[in-house]
């Protein structure tokens, strides 16, 4: 500690941030688990309105899943590119991840608008409220992820693949993959049983 | 579960002496602060008449007695230690580095743990024995009453007799009671201190409260869960009467001019307290089920009445 160099000081800060981000994600995971629990509780609270079987479409959900998982793969490619500090490759892979994520979000919004137009709005029943809020909260997280990717791209163009960028990229990666895990939960708890019914 | 319950029950001799020991403790504890203040009827929780409420009171005092094993030493030590070891005395047995003792640790973990085991067994036994949902254990065909909490009054439907009252609950002393409860909108809690347990009434579902009414007695029941402006007025007399008086009372209500038509029910659903009891000489026995299903959509009616 006495001979603390600037470099190790910075490395410690990055390490702390990553650890802190893990803790934050755990808190976020609890938010999602409570929303999952709420969805499970309200599963049959359709108040005579449409239920899971009426509003789920497997093809849409399958394509959404594919887009989001692919976005994680391409993000992984960006991480590989970062290992070798290939700035342009990182940019390209981040760009593709962004587009895939945006595609996911676009499909989700489209799905929501369609449901509302059919009268399956979140105001219709407790069940639909819980569906929209659970899936929508994930969607809001994806939006935040997209904004974050955009700022990461801007930072990369400004500073290049520095240590600071790499640390931030690592946290972004944690967040991005966390959203996959949540989505897999949504797919298997919300969409699959809905379709199989 | 049931067999486990029996095993625990047989292991513990406590249930035999429970009420006597409880009453004794109760007497000793209450004699001090309450003597000469007001009558025992002002303390329904301490001087209950309902069989359930009596067991609940006894449980309370037995648990206090058990816990005093840990609590009294704290009082004594928290006064004695600071006096005995105050710095100005410069006691020669000062031992600044004494910070561990296996024996002491074992005692301070074990004693509270044993006490929790003791009270925990009581919890298991009596939570089952006093379960508001338990099926009737006593003889006799239960009196069924359906209670509906409405802003800020209680509607009691007697489906077996096809009649209803507002803010008056009359029960015969010789038959068990099977109460079903719901609420038109907000959550409330049905509570008759001194008679039996309390239980929530919630919209869209029916809760249950089964109990023995005990001796002839009059109580004040109320909603104990805050539900707005008229909350303090949401109370009603509860009368436990003889079989004969119950019959007479039924006959009186049968002669009442009012009938609980859907229209009357809608009028009742508007928020407002009801200072005097109402009697309805006829009531639809299916009304309660329909209220639980939300078919009367009380929430929407309350919107219009509250916004005025």
């Amino acid at each position, binding site marked *: 500690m*006495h001979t*603390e160099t600037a470099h190790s000081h910075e490395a410690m800060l990055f390490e702390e941030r990553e650890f802190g981000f893990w803790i934050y994600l755990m808190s*976020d995971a609890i938010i999602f688990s*409570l929303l999952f629990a709420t969805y499970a509780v*309200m599963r049959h*609270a359709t108040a005579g309105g449409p239920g899971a079987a009426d509003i789920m479409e497997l093809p849409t959900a399958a394509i959404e899943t594919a887009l989001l998982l692919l976005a994680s793969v391409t993000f992984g490619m960006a991480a590989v590119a970062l290992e070798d500090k290939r700035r342009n490759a990182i940019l390209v892979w981040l760009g593709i991840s962004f587009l895939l994520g945006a595609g996911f979000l676009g499909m989700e919004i489209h799905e929501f608008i369609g449901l509302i137009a059919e009268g399956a709005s*979140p*105001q219709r*029943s*407790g*069940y639909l*409220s819980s569906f929209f809020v659970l899936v929508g909260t994930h969607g809001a997280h994806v939006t935040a992820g997209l904004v974050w990717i955009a700022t990461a791209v*801007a930072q990369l163009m400004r500073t290049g693949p520095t240590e*600071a960028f790499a640390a931030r990229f690592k946290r972004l990666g944690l967040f991005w993959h966390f959203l996959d895990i949540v989505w897999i939960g949504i797919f298997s708890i919300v969409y699959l049983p809905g379709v199989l019914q | *579960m049931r067999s486990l319950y029996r095993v625990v029950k047989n292991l513990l001799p406590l249930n035999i002496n429970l009420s006597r020991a409880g009453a004794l403790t109760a007497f000793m504890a209450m004699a001090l602060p*309450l003597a000469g203040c007001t009558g025992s009827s*002002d*303390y*329904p*929780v301490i001087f209950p008449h309902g069989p359930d409420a009596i067991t*609940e*009171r006894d449980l*309370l005092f037995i648990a*206090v007695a058990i*816990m005093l094993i*840990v609590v009294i030493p*704290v009082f004594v030590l928290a006064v004695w*230690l*600071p006096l005995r*070891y105050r710095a100005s005395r*410069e006691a020669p047995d*000062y031992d*600044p580095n*004494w*910070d561990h003792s296996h024996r002491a*640790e074992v005692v*301070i973990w074990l004693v*509270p743990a044993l006490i929790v085991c003791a009270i925990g067994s009581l*919890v*298991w036994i*009596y*939570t*089952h024995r006093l379960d508001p949902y338990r099926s009737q254990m006593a003889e006799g065909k239960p009196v069924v009453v359906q209670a509906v909490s409405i802003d800020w009054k209680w509607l009691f439907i007697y489906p077996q007799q096809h009649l209803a009252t507002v803010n008056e609950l009359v029960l015969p002393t010789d038959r068990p009671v099977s109460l079903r409860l719901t609420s038109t909108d*907000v959550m409330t809690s049905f509570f008759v201190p001194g008679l*039996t347990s*309390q*239980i*929530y009434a*919630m*919209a869209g579902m029916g809760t249950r409260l089964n109990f023995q009414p005990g001796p002839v007695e009059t109580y*004040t029941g*109320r909603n*104990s*869960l*805050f539900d*707005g402006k008229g*909350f*303090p007025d949401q109370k009603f007399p509860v009368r436990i009467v003889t079989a004969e008086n119950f019959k007479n009372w039924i006959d009186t209500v049968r002669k009442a001019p009012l009938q609980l038509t859907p229209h009357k029910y809608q009028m009742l659903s508007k928020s407002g307290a009801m200072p005097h009891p109402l009697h309805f000489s006829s009531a639809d026995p299916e009304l309660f089920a329909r209220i639980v299903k939300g078919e009367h959509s009380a929430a*929407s009616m*309350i919107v219009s009445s509250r916004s005025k």
Partner: protein
Amino acid sequence: MLGKLTLHVLPLYSPIAMSGAAMELLGVLFIAALITWFGKWRYIWNEWLTTVDHKRIGIMYVVLAFVMLFRGFSDAFMMRMQQATALNGHGYLPPEHFNQVFSAHGTIMIIFMAMPFLTGIINFVVPQQIGARDVSFPFLNSVSFWLTAAGAALVLTSLVIGRFTTAGWTAYPPFSELPTSPGSGTDYWIWAVLVSGVGSTLTGVNFVVTIIKRRAPGMSLMQMPLFTWAAFITAILMVFAFPGVTVAAALLGFDRFLGMHFFTADAGGNAMNYINLFWLWGHPEVYIVILPSFGIFSELVATFSSKRLFGYVSLVYATMVIGILSFTVWLHHFFTMGSSADVNSFFGIATMVIAVPTGVKIYDWLLTMYRGRIRLTSHMHWTLGFMVAFVIGGMTGVLLAIPPVDYVMHNTLFLVAHFHNMLIPGSLFGLLAGYQYWFPKAFGFRLDEWWGKTSFWFWFVGFYVAFMPLYVLGFMGMPRRMDYYQNPAWQPWLIVAAIGAVLIAIGILCLAIQLVVSIRRREELADLTGDPWDARTLEWMNASPAPLYNFAVVPEIHDREELAWRKERGISHDAPAHYTPIEMPCNTSTGVLIGGAAFVLGFAVIWNIWWLAILAFAGVIAATIVKGSVPEEEYTITPDQIAALESRGSGPLLGFLSPLEDERGDHSTHGLLNSIGD
């Protein structure tokens, strides 16, 4: 343009609410005028509002807590006066006002008094106790504080503009839904809880990381002082419990703002789900507000008994067990909802199990006193008073954990007496003792002992007089939250309780007098050594007030009670041979701006001023993005500067203008305090 804001939102419905609002506004204006008069705006902004120093953030938290204690106690006082006189409707408060008062009292005391108080003390003490220079995320710390302050400001605003909720501090639906709770009140509650809840979650993250990563070399987990342990478990509880209330309040907001049906009485809503979510947070929250005080008592007992803490390992495990079990007992808040006997028994027994580690703690403290040399200072008064009062609350807590007993005590004043019996001795006594204990470390002089003890006695006796009658009223079957009543037998006990409230009011007054008297006598009460209590832990190794970097040289840790260990060996104050430069984070205005924007966002949504809400939201996002994109600025303190600061020593208010400027002989802060104090 202004949404639902019209002149009707002013509290014209009740003259008492009007005067409360006027007092609040005058208070704000008075403080603003004072700062303007002394020309201190720049100082306040540069040195306090934009600070990222954990000590100053801690002090600001405690100041906020005292402001809210005053407001929350005023509410309590009004309630006691109301109920003392309200037989047959003779009270002075109309129901719509009384119902806001009890809702505001609970919300304020838990979320905006206890939480800032304990967070403030944790902030101030923990880094110094573990040999760190600051927390892991100083900027985030500033954001946390300003979000808490924004939530508190929303609650305070509700007295002036609009109303507060009448649905109680728990805001149970369906009553808190739009049909039965129209108007702004519940919306204020939702936004205040959400905004401050984010702040508390971030505080939790910050302290988990700080305690894991920033301990001085040699300090293993099992060598952390007990207050740090308590803070650590508290921080973990914050991280895992706060999502519960965030989700509950957010879904209630969706119901109210967007017409959804999570908890409504119709269309499939399920109010029981809210109650589960709320208490999934609410019960751990009880331990969030109590554990730090347990930590404080552990420090005080050892220090003022001049003896090593007895049963350290037991105390640590007891704290952990309490933390874990706190998540397994939430259902005991609603045994009367009709769960099966098996479920009720399980949660009842789980609740009682918590009494075991709690009892162990009490006995460990008692055994710490055994064969000690006890100095009966004001701090020890609070500690002993806590033990005597807390065991009664613990006993009534176990009673309420017996489901059949709860069936007859639930929702009565017995319950109210029980949780005040836990929280006033268990949380507040500890926090007040902590405030008096660490005050010299913050300001370089001690607080007056006589006024401290006088305050304690008024609090202690006032507590018994105010709350023992409520137990009795519970036996009489009196429900909580009654604006008026018709049973004359209740009134004598309510009058006694009101007298208790008067005694507590005098106790609070004594605290205020203590502060003023101590400021005036600060030279007499000066702490010139940095260790005024002959304490045992690391934070007392520094000067008082501690220099902004806390430790010129980060110490090596050898023992749980490091300072006592060093004093035994006579090496507590060895000056190091040389200093190395220290990097510290720069102050930033982003934290206070984010807090301000969060306040505006909440306010705008409550009143449907959508353009402003969008603007404020965009502001928060933009600030987050910008702050996240630029590296944190740091500045370097040179060895010469460190040497100068270290030679400054201890004394009243040293370094309070600015630690570095002080060396140039600028003492104008002292001028400010002199003119207030003399």
